């Protein structure tokens, strides 16, 4: 019942969210708090926050599965769903953030039709790739998990996939932190950023899972312990931040550190509402911390900045509780029972090595191809994308292997073919790129106007004169054989006898069959033309 109510609350929140989204997209980045020195605002902060929350699901299924923690199984399925929901929400924010969202495809790391490539030096590209891969693998992971409820043999594939996902999660947040740490902004610098970001992400993620598990009617004491542990870990990083950059935020410390300490008090901890409130306080603190971190200046917030809260939570709640209700109806409560009871046979090591090897070679191939095409990119800058690409291929192979066990071959090939066609269409569209756009009305090409600067005589001779008089001054016989009298062949003696003035008069005013060029050739150009003809005459045999 509570899930259903929250689902509806999420949908209700979506209504203002749609307005905010529409307004933000029609007005653009002008609609939220930014200026000409602060270019990254609340969407980026919200993105970092939601990516952090997404880590919860992966943490509780993949990481703890790999680490052989038993109690994770009770909450793994909802947590995985929350990952997908949070990732979808997180992916919206960078798109809104872009000045021209429809050009986001220029971030795809492929050779476009224009023979241009992304700048692999930019952390945003790493980010884009890593998060795309993370989303794909999270979906794979959830698919395997959900599939294992119907086909128990799929359980064997969860652990290998978890081994792919576990490092990827750390990788993703490291890259997100590099977005900041690699810049020259003093408040964003810090070699400890990756750890700082990962700890923060896990902290808020644990708080989210705590709330979600309370909603499922389960209490996980370990989660509460973890919350306390992480609050101390984060405190250490905050102190570090204070010492190196003198950044100090009492409200974050209050909500993020002091409030979780209430969990030490037994009677308080026993009350579910208090536990949820503490977790919410942690989530709020981390959200506020992300905001402070991304935009340290105190620009005045617009309604759109507040609207992101509705967009984030509305979207998350609608997707999460929607999916949760659907999965509950399909699987009822088998979710925990089956996955815990089936004995897991170890995945053959050889096959595992094969998949990892394939992923490694695929990533290596990509890097080699990219460096071949764009030799200026330092290979070190390709390292951040190497692992996500490798993980994508490895994870994909594992999933295909898993489903090839349980699905009819025809169905499997159909699915793969469908996927291939969709990806092909998508890839083709990106390859084609946008059309050349005429933002301004195109220039009208008409007759040449006489330029302000005199043109070189050689050029004028070749275009205006040579068609009759010949490029070398010896008549274009193909054309002038029709004329009578023939234009005279040029010779130095004739030039001397005629003189510059009368010659330029001929050029400008015409004579016999020769047209008048006044208005098309300037007087100074005519003089330089005569000079040029003299040199032609001298060269003449």
């Amino acid at each position, binding site marked *: 019942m509570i899930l*259903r109510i929250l689902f*509806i609350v999420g*949908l*209700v929140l*979506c*209504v203002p969210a*749609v*307005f905010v989204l*529409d307004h933000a997209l*029609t007005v*653009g*980045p*002008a609609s939220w708090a*930014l*200026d*000409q*020195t602060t*270019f*990254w605002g609340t969407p980026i902060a919200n993105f970092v926050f939601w990516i952090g929350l997404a880590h919860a699901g992966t943490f509780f299924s993949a990481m703890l599965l790999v680490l052989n923690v038993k109690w994770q199984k009770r909450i793994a399925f909802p947590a995985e769903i929350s990952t997908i929901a949070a990732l979808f929400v997180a992916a919206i924010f960078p798109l809104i*953030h*872009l*000045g*021209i*969202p429809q*050009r*986001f495809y*220029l*971030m795809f790391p492929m050779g476009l039709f224009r023979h*241009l*490539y*992304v*700048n692999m*030096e*930019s*952390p*945003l*590209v790493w980010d*884009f790739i890593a998060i795309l891969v993370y989303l794909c693998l999270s979906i794979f992971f959830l698919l395997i998990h959900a599939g294992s409820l119907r086909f128990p043999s799929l359980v064997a594939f969860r652990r290998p996939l978890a081994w792919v996902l576990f490092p990827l999660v750390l990788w993703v947040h490291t890259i997100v932190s590099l977005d900041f740490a*690699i*810049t*020259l*902004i003093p408040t964003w610098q810090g070699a400890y950023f990756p750890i700082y970001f990962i700890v923060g992400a896990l902290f808020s993620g644990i708080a989210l899972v705590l709330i979600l598990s309370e909603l499922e009617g389960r209490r996980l004491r370990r989660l509460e312990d973890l919350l306390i542990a992480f609050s101390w870990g984060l405190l250490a990083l905050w102190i570090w931040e204070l010492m190196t950059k003198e950044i100090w935020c009492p409200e974050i410390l209050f909500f993020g550190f002091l409030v979780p300490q209430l969990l030490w008090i037994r009677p308080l901890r026993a009350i579910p509402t208090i536990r949820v409130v503490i977790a919410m306080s942690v989530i709020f603190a981390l959200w506020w911390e992300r905001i402070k971190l991304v935009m340290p200046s105190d*620009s005045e917030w617009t309604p759109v900045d507040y609207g992101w809260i509705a967009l984030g939570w509305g979207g998350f709640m609608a997707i999460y509780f929607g999916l949760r209700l659907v999965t509950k109806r399909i699987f009822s409560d088998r979710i925990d029972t089956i996955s815990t009871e089936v004995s897991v046979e170890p995945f053959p090591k050889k096959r595992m090595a094969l998949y990892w090897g394939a992923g490694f070679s695929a990533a290596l191939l990509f890097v080699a191809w990219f460096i071949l095409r764009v030799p200026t990119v330092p290979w070190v800058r390709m390292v951040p994308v190497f692992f996500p690409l490798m993980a994508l291929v490895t994870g994909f192979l594992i999933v295909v292997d898993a489903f090839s066990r349980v699905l009819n071959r025809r169905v499997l090939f159909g699915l793969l073919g469908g996927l291939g066609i969709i990806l092909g269409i998508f890839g083709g569209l990106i390859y084609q790129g946008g059309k050349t*756009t005429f*933002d*301004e009305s195109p220039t009208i090409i008409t007759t040449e106007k006489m330029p302000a600067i005199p043109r*070189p005589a050689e050029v004028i001779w070749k275009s205006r004169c040579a068609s009759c008089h010949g490029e070398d001054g010896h008549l274009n016989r193909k054309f002038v054989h029709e004329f009578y009298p023939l234009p005279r062949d040029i010779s130095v003696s004739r030039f001397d006898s005629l003189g510059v003035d009368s010659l330029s008069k001929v050029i400008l005013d015409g004579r016999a069959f020769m047209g008048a060029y006044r208005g098309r050739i300037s007087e100074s150009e005519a003089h330089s033309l005569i000079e040029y003809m003299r040199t032609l005459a001298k060269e003449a045999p």
Partner: protein
Amino acid sequence: MDQSRRNFLKVASLVLGGLALWGCRRDKNFAPTPKASSDISLWKIEIKQAMQRNISLGDLVPIKIPGPLLKFSKEINRFGMSIDLDICNGCGECILACMLENNIPRVNDNEAQKGRFMHWIEMREGVPVMCSHCGDAPCEKVCPTGAAVASPDGMSAMIYPRCIGSRYCGANCPSKTRKFNYTDARAEGLSAKFNPEVPLRNRGVMEKCSLCVQRLQNDRLLAKTLGKEWRGMGVQSACAMACPKKAIVFGNWLDSESPLSQAVRGRGVYTLRSIAGLDPSVVYLVGRA
């Protein structure tokens, strides 16, 4: 199941209500398009307004005279400027010339209040500050699409059709001289095509001082067509041309005969502290070396 049907109906009506509301949202097609004005006095008023803001300049630190670029060590041209702070009195003529040369739009009142001016040259404590065209430019490194890209001629170029507006370059620019097109100046009638050579920019792209790239391109192409070696002699940026005291000098750092090389001879060469290590091409001259 009755419960869920009721819920479904509730949800559906909410969604429909939302969609209906969305349908009547403000439609930009109804907004009248203001008439574009190309009255230069409007631009002058805006420059005055922008110059009244107090933007701190930060420290100036001495650097070496810019030499060949590390990335393009074989090139014979590296364009840049020097601004003589002993002569400059911060009159702001360069800002106007720059705006007219590069078709820089004005901003509406709302934007002006937030300080979101588009001026490529900004007066900070009476010192004109523009993009320094760093040889080791941090903006180029972080641009995901390569829209901010180094040119072998020493410019840090901006390719507008490739810009997706991630604003990473602006975030990473230590001197904060990049400007983002927050509004569609053309739709609001705030931009004018003073110079037919320079394209107007769209909403959502970054822009900044281009070192009057159009003038360099025109001159270079003419020289190449005539088969001459091109060192950019005779080209001047709009601000350098407009400066009433001739405090701004444009030229080629690698050409010892260029006015730039002559102007810096024996002078103290300075730049902003934040970009001192980035090999800037636009420098300040203060006192004797």
